[in-house]
């Protein structure tokens, strides 16, 4: 207990509470879960580590918590090097995946656990206040198994927050909740973060969740950070195909640079020409270079080929045939096959629905040139495309129980984690 006050006391006021990861990596035998990684999380920000199963995001989080030792590199909290500190000496608390509430203690004692360990005498008022903050005041004397999933989640948040950590780590905190509740808890967590002003580092595989809650998102793939930035910036200017496909949906078209003029790159794709603002091209664009030209589906529009004359000049155009039209209420989602690419998606708001836009119709897909981005063609065009996988696979990935086991650490099937979950 003495050590905790010591460690939290060593950081002088005013030196900032940024979390700094310098070259940290984690390997299990031959498998590299996290490649050397540099990352700075500014104090007071809501930071999301976003990635698919097994991308190393949970391992990164666990290294910050001290539950996993980095193979190389260091972790700093403010000016303090905590790389070699055991978890119980770090001013950091975690909201665990599936919560890990103590089943033998009631809600009150679960929340009071950290305070008692640090030798705080009168915990009553603090615990009461914290339970009120997460709206669980009247459940103080229930056992965790008597609570609903959403309530358990809030106990886990309260149990961590009551210690006023420098950083709160959240490991897929909403993964076990149903969609509606997850939406509500996203806003709730955001509210709490704004209220307490503590740095939140949030690990998730759900891009929507990351974009809703975080100020800054780091997209991770195969043990590396692919891109880091504000959600809108990542969405509008993806730097890699993985980010383009993992964050929302992108139409990527293979193209070749024809000429560069006046801040605009002209490319040839599928027999037609397209324009890309030079500022939105993240790859070298000399004449003849291969690029992947992209546009988000909500920025594209469809016009029947017969009426192509009505399309204003200066827009990028691709002709094709509608193969699929799905009515989604607020919008309709079309898939268009064209010489430039197959399965190009268009989301059209259902303001004035044109019934002639049906599968088989000849159409022109067009969009504002300014909305075009271009990526290096030397990467997998399919990277980050979400495949349909069982919902449990994402939740059991990198379960702490299996993380120490080299054989299982890389698997995303989560058989080991699944067993543990069933046991708990």
């Amino acid at each position, binding site marked *: 207990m003495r050590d905790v006050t010591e460690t939290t006391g060593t950081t002088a006021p005013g030196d900032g509470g940024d979390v700094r990861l310098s070259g940290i990596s984690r390997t299990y035998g031959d498998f590299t879960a996290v490649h050397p990684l540099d990352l700075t999380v500014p104090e007071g920000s809501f930071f999301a580590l976003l990635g698919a199963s097994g991308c190393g995001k949970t391992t990164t989080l666990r290294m910050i*918590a001290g539950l996993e030792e980095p193979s190389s590199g260091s972790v700093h909290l403010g000016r303090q090097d905590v790389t070699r500190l055991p978890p119980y000496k770090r001013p950091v608390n*975690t909201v665990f995946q599936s919560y890990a509430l103590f089943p033998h203690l009631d809600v009150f004692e679960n929340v009071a656990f950290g305070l008692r360990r640090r030798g705080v005498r009168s915990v009553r008022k603090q615990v009461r206040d914290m339970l009120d903050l997460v709206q669980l005041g009247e459940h103080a004397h229930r056992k965790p198994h008597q609570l609903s999933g959403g309530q358990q989640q809030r106990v886990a948040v309260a149990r961590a927050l009551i210690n006023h950590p420098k950083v709160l780590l959240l490991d897929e905190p909403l993964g076990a909740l149903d969609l509606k509740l997850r939406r509500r808890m996203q806003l709730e967590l955001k509210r709490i973060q704004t209220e307490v002003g503590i740095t939140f580092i949030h690990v998730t595989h759900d891009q929507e969740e990351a974009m809703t809650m975080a100020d800054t998102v780091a997209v991770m793939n195969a043990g590396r950070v692919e891109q880091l930035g504000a959600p809108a910036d990542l969405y509008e200017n993806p730097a890699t195909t993985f980010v383009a496909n993992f964050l929302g949906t992108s139409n990527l078209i293979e193209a070749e640079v024809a000429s560069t003029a006046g801040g605009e790159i002209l490319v040839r794709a599928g027999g037609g020409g397209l324009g890309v603002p030079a500022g939105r091209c993240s790859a070298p664009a000399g004449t003849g270079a291969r690029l992947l030209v992209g546009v988000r589906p909500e920025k594209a529009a469809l016009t029947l080929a017969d009426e192509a004359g009505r399309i204003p000049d200066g827009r990028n155009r691709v002709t094709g045939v509608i193969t699929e039209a799905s009515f989604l209420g607020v919008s309709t989602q079309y898939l268009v096959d064209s010489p430039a690419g197959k399965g190009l998606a268009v989301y059209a708001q259902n303001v004035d629905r044109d019934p002639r836009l049906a599968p088989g119709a000849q159409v022109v897909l067009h969009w504002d040139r300014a909305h075009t981005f271009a990526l290096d063609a030397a990467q997998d065009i399919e990277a980050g495309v979400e495949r349909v996988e069982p919902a449990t696979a994402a939740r059991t990935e990198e379960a702490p129980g299996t993380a120490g086991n080299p054989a299982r650490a890389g698997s995303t099937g989560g058989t080991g984690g699944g067993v543990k979950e069933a046991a708990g």
Partner: protein
Amino acid sequence: MSSTALTGPPPPAPAAAAEEAAPARRRGRLTPYLLLLPGLLWLLVFFVLPVVYQASTSVQTGSLEAGYEVTWRFATYTEALAEYWPQFLRSVLYAGTATALCLLLGYPLAYLIAFRAGRWRNLIMILVIAPFFTSFLVRTLAWKTILADGGAVVDALNTLHVLDVTAGLGLTDGERVLATPLAVVCGLTYNFLPFMVLPLYTSLERIDPRLHEAAADLYARPATVFRKVTLPLSMPGVTAGTLLTFIPAGGDYVNADLLGSTDTRMIGNVVQTQFLRVLDYPTAAALSFILMAVILVAVSVHIRRSGTEDLV
């Protein structure tokens, strides 16, 4: 049972369908009872009937030659208790010591298997169960050799002056270990250790390792994690293990018979002698019931104290 199936008003369904469904439903409701039947019959024949028979024996008087008769003589109980209370006391003492030793040896072992053994887990489990591959008697006889006078173990203990200490405590006798209380307690501890380890392992293994991480994350040092999380969550295993060790150890007579002397006789030995040598059936039966009562009281106190009422 069948009446409950018939009391519910049948749903207004077509006659043919109802006729078909009703017997199937009745069979469905009977299934649990049918499954219970073999076990219940077994218990009735091999537990309830013997207990009733022994209860009636304990209040009979007479002799082997003249035959016994139920006379409701409860004085047999008080006489038996008055004469054999030292053996009762000794049984509780030996069984209690053996249980405590089993817990001390078994908890670290179970902890190791559950959390640290990794790929050795199954091998260690097999080693724990391995003694069951030979008979109880053979294993106990082996201890006779291990603890034999002038044997390696006794020599080593002697050289280390351990025997001086144990002799001072009255646990051993001079340079002998065999035929002393220590030998009997060792035998009991050895023979019942698996009964302690297995329930402990089961309850420890069920603890989510994330709870350890959560406790460490909330400022608990390793020792505190054990005290505040692991130990409380393993209490069902501790209770089950101590019961499974204490109950059979309290009634055991083989260890005291093979490894002990006349000074280490436990109540099991007395019951055995009364039944098989003295042929005083009422006293033997009364002693058995007193033993059952002692154990029941001890067990219920233990369960009440460890706060795991839901175990039984």
